[in-house]
């Protein structure tokens, strides 16, 4: 193990380490702690310049209540869910199929198609912006959730295919050969043999894509406009212009907007990290 396990070092260093750790964490999360503190203060504190002292009153429920009942925040949050969840389902479905095809079968263009998916996944969004926006308008889907969902599914398929194909490749190929000897049809191999084995990959990919899509901002501003379709990342701008310079409310709004992926991460940590670090170990 590297570095040297702390239990095997001197007592003095052990104590230093144990005190250093929480301090480092506080410094690391300082900007976030600041926002969390802002979000429970009252507007009076800001008016009197009491930015960093103790809050004169505890306004947690008041501030967050305003976010939920006096702004369009719930609508934006709902939009975000209605965009994110179908995208996760679509991208995972498409890529388990492409991953299966590329991971199991040997044919000439296999690697080429695989690398097309990887390459597309690295491309800067901006080169897609003008044509995709044009296409979405042409399909009559500008400023709709569906327009955003379709694009996200397509783009995420690149990364998801990379992920799924590598996962399926690591499965024991003898299983598939044995099934073929038994005369099982190819689609049945996919459905009854490969898919059940892919559960960990499906879980990991779902949480990852959920986070990516929830946090998307660029496509939200390119493909949507108003509160009927905008997800929360784009909507927070209009939220902030509704409460200009009211830092306690803006902070509360940001925390609400950031919460679902954070909750997802803490609930599904194992899968999330397994997905994110795929390939970091050989």
């Amino acid at each position: 193990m590297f570095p040297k396990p702390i239990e095997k070092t001197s007592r003095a260093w052990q104590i230093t380490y144990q005190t250093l750790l929480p301090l480092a964490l506080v410094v690391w999360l300082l900007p976030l702690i600041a926002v969390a503190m802002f979000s429970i203060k009252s507007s009076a504190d800001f008016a009197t310049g009491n930015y960093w002292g103790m809050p004169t009153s505890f306004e947690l429920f008041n501030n967050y209540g305003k976010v939920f009942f006096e702004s369009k925040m719930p609508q934006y949050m709902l939009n975000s869910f209605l965009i994110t969840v179908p995208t996760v389902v679509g991208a995972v479905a498409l890529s388990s199929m492409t991953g299966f095809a590329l991971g199991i079968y040997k044919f000439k263009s296999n690697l080429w198609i695989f690398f097309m998916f990887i390459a597309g996944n690295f491309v800067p969004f901006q080169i897609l912006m003008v044509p995709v926006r044009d296409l979405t308008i042409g399909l009559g889907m500008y400023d709709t959730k569906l327009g955003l969902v379709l694009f996200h599914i397509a783009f995420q398929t690149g990364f998801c295919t990379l992920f799924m194909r590598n996962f399926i490749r690591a499965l024991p190929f003898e299983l598939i050969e044995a099934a073929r000897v038994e005369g099982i049809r190819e689609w049945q191999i996919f459905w009854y043999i490969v898919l059940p084995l892919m559960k960990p990959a499906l879980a990991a990919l779902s949480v990852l894509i959920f986070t990516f899509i929830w946090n998307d901002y660029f496509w939200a501003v390119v493909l949507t406009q108003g509160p009927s379709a905008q997800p929360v990342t784009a909507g927070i701008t209009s939220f902030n212009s509704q409460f200009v310079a009211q830092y306690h409310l803006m902070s509360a709004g940001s925390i609400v907007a950031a919460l679902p992926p954070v909750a997802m991460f803490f609930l599904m940590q194992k899968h999330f990290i397994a997905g994110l670090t795929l390939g970091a170990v050989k």
Partner: protein
Amino acid sequence: MTSLTAGSTTPHKKGWYARNEIKVTPWLFLLPGILFFAVYVIAPIFQSFWISFHEWDGLGEKTYIGFANYERLATDRKFEVSFWNNLKWLFLYLLAIPLGLFIALLLNQKVWGIRLYKSLFFFPFVISQVVVGLVFSWFYLPREGLLNAVLVTFGMEPVNILGHPGTATYGIIAAGLWPQTAYCMILYLTGLNAVDPEQVEAARLDGAKGYKMLWYVILPQLRPATFIAFVVTIIGALRSFDLISVMTNGGPFGSTRVLSFFMYEESFSEFGFRMGYGAAIAVVLFLLMLCFIGYFLWSMFQDEKEGR
């Protein structure tokens, strides 16, 4: 094994599909994915190239103007600023890799509660860049911000990082480094977990420790993690858009523009949409990125060839 498989799938008197099942199935499975990907990702790349040779407001007719958009770029001061800022992003963003490694080494222990520490160090990565941008812009606020409150406590002059053209870009990059470092950290933590303990012990018996141990024994074993950290960091640096848009909107005086932001700004310019010019900027960004993408793909391709 293979001959058995082939034998079982070519019996007589079966339909065309049954006879060609192994050949046809992968294409049926690939079809929806490829279709989506071709329409929304592959084709738009070529369309952008084509649009960049036109003058177009996004609605009316496109007028072919050859390389005029690119010639204009060459003399555009805004383009120059954006390009240099992109390079700043690229180099400074790479700091996330050593920083991430440092934190990973700090946290690679088995003390009580370390799992919670690891996830708390990691979780800035999960927050959307929009919120990270807002959080940092409030952190930097000249009057209300915590940064200046801390600086003043230590007897230093308060600063207005995002208000000055000389410092604004660095302020944004620092905000971007926060989640990116967390990402690199988690990659290295996973990598450190898989470091071969026997090699470490052997090296320790040979007297290697500290820095030398890290450089000659640990880092070579962390190569896959380092490769991925490079890929995601470089791509992330060149994609930077959210933070700039939220924190400064390109200002002050256009000093924080990067190509991706400049492209967006020109395409939806308040003086009419300039889609052709925007596409030309996107093409330049794409070509810049292509150098890296090409290298990444090449390395991955080498790995694939080694495999089965």
